[in-house]
């Protein structure tokens, strides 16, 4: 897995400033060792308040039944499944950053992967709530599991995409958690060994599993991370593919399309990166991590956003084209009468503006590197992606085949909204705890790229930059024995 040790100065440094290993530790760990700020308390308690409201909303749904929500015939899926798909989608960016970018050897992932993976885990936790409570009789949720039971045994239907979802989401959560935690072990050990108070030493000691930093352990750890990344890559693609199968394998017009899996995966990464931006921009400002989450990082993520946003845009247009090209009247009606027009037309155009039109502004370098603009865009994209799921679900359901079964206008009740706000509460409660008690940046990984991609170490390369190629190669070969850290890939 060795990356090229010499990096051109043309590549932006990943770590700004004149840092030593010790400073990296200090910069990242000092917030854990300090008392939480007032801002942290405010944010945390607001999140908990939202969470409590969500708990109450769910309580009402469990006690009084699914009638607490405005779901009706034919809109059997509404806000709940919209929120489910939205949250799962957000999770995808974390895995993309931690796994796919690791396989692609993108050095910039080191600055953001820890927080993005945390985001994944919390987002999947939020997502899972929706299908579970949508069951109505939530105490029966374990019926989805294939356990030997006294009803025959009657097994779940393994041919059903809804059951695939159970497996996909739970696997995704477990694997993400393992990946995240195995990366955290060395960093917990760092905190443990610096800890001044007894309690902190004890807790982080427990959390670090007795990690010592042995070379053999590191070697296995590297191998483990690489294989977990290799497993997570197809996994993350499969998860949203399976989520899209919930729709695509049905015969509902507007859902029954083969384009869904890639379209959903691209949309998931799109919204996930937007959420990563929202969180990172706040994190780097509040925790003073501008040296580690640089404008270069932000720009790279914006590039992913403009790419996936364009893929999503192509998918929207392809859907419209296919509706016309199929010559199926139901398909055409759904798209041209009830989706881009009709009572829910506004949501379609909101989605189009937020997801397809506005991200195109990221073609301008200046805007890609603007913190304020990125922050606004990240919110806009997430609104757009929420409406994408809403449009897909509701606009396909509210006009059934027979006009007699057309629905009245679907509006959520306060408890449906409350459930959604509650998951925001859950997400941010977890994220605030994470930001306070966990190393938000992978300390060991930053140290690993520091000597090649740190600003001060890049400056040392100035002399090499002016050399001719022959001269350069000769020198590197000659120096190798004396200077262990300077190596080239083809050495």
């Amino acid at each position: 897995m060795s990356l090229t040790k010499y990096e051109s100065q043309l590549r932006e440094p990943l770590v700004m400033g004149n840092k030593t290993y010790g400073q990296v530790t200090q910069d990242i760990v000092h917030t854990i060792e300090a008392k939480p700020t007032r801002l942290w308390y405010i944010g945390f308690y607001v999140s908990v308040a939202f969470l409590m409201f969500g708990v109450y909303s769910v309580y009402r749904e469990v006690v009084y039944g699914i009638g607490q929500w405005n779901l009706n015939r034919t809109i059997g899926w509404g806000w709940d499944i919209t929120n489910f798909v939205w949250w799962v989608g957000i999770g995808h960016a974390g895995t993309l950053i931690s796994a796919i970018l690791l396989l692609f050897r993108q050095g910039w992932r080191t600055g953001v992967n820890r927080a993005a993976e945390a985001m994944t885990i919390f987002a999947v936790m939020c997502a899972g709530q929706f299908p579970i409570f949508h069951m109505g009789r939530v105490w029966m949720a374990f019926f989805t599991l294939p356990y030997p039971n006294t009803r025959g045994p009657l097994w779940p239907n393994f041919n059903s995409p809804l059951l695939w979802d159970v497996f996909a989401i739970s696997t995704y959560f477990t694997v993400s958690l393992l990946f995240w935690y195995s990366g955290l072990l060395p960093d917990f050990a760092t905190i443990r060994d610096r800890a001044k108070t007894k309690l902190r030493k004890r807790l982080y000691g427990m959390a670090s599993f007795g990690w010592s930093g042995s070379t053999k352990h590191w070697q296995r750890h590297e191998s483990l991370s690489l294989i977990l990344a290799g497993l997570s890559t197809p996994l993350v693609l499969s998860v949203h593919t399976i989520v899209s199968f919930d729709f695509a394998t049905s015969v509902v017009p507007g859902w029954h399309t083969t384009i869904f899996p890639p379209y959903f995966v691209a949309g998931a990464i799109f919204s996930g990166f937007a959420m990563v931006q929202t969180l990172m921009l706040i994190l780097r400002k509040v925790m003073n991590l501008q040296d580690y989450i640089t404008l270069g990082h932000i720009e790279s993520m914006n590039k992913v956003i403009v790419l996936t946003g364009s893929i999503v845009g192509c998918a929207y247009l392809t859907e419209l084209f296919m509706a016309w090209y199929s010559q199926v009247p139901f398909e055409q009606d759904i798209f041209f009468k009830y989706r881009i027009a009709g009572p829910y037309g506004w949501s379609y155009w909101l989605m189009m503006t937020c997801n397809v039109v506005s991200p195109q502004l990221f073609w301008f370098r200046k805007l890609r590197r603007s913190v304020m603009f990125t922050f606004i865009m990240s919110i806009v994209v997430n609104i757009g992606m929420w409406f994408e799921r809403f449009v897909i679900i509701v606009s396909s359901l509210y006009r059934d085949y027979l006009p007699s079964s057309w629905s009245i206008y679907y509006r959520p009740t306060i408890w449906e909204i409350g459930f959604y706000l509650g998951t925001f509460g859950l997400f941010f409660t977890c994220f605030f705890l994470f930001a306070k008690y966990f190393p938000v940046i992978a300390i060991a990984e930053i140290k690993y790229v520091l000597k090649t991609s740190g600003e001060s170490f890049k400056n040392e390369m100035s002399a090499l930059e002016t050399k001719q190629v022959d001269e350069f190669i000769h020198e590197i070969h000659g120096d190798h024995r004396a200077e262990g850290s300077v190596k080239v890939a083809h050495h």
Partner: protein
Amino acid sequence: MALKKFVVGCFEDEKVLFPAVEKVRKAGYKFHDIYTPFPVHGLDKAMGLRDTSIHTAGFLFGMIGTTTAVTFMTWVFTKDWPLNIGGKPNFAFPAWIPIAFELTVLCSAVGMVLTFLYICQLAPSLKRHHFHPRATDDLFVMVFECTDKMNEDELKSFLANVGAQEINTQVAEEGWWIGKYGEDQELYKESNIA
């Protein structure tokens, strides 16, 4: 559990560490271990460690997952409770690919992480002797076990020559024990220490 005597040398820079590792090996000293704050690439090779085969565990566990998923679903739908779902075949293999895949990944990941924790002997509530608190911060800590065959002082001066900063001798427990960090523990009765 056994108390052993170790010679410890600390390095601050990998530029010094790598040549030192080479010299140490040439001189014939055997490493107990080198503790580093981050994965130093090439150090395992330089120390002469063999490659890890943890990925084999991942593959085997993955295969267990696939086999379990496919055989179980086959048994359920063809033997135990054949169900007519829209007249489709009972052995509906394409429809089982998602679950078979998920189970492969799940078993492989869980199995590999557990294997990793087992072979590295890592678990919550385990405690080890750490030779230097900065080994997880910014120091590369080279550790040698003292045996009858070698001269401790010679090794120490050798380490100083190759660029080690802090050099000392520590008597410590070699393996792990169950304990809490942040609390001093008496692992051995005084009389037992040789």
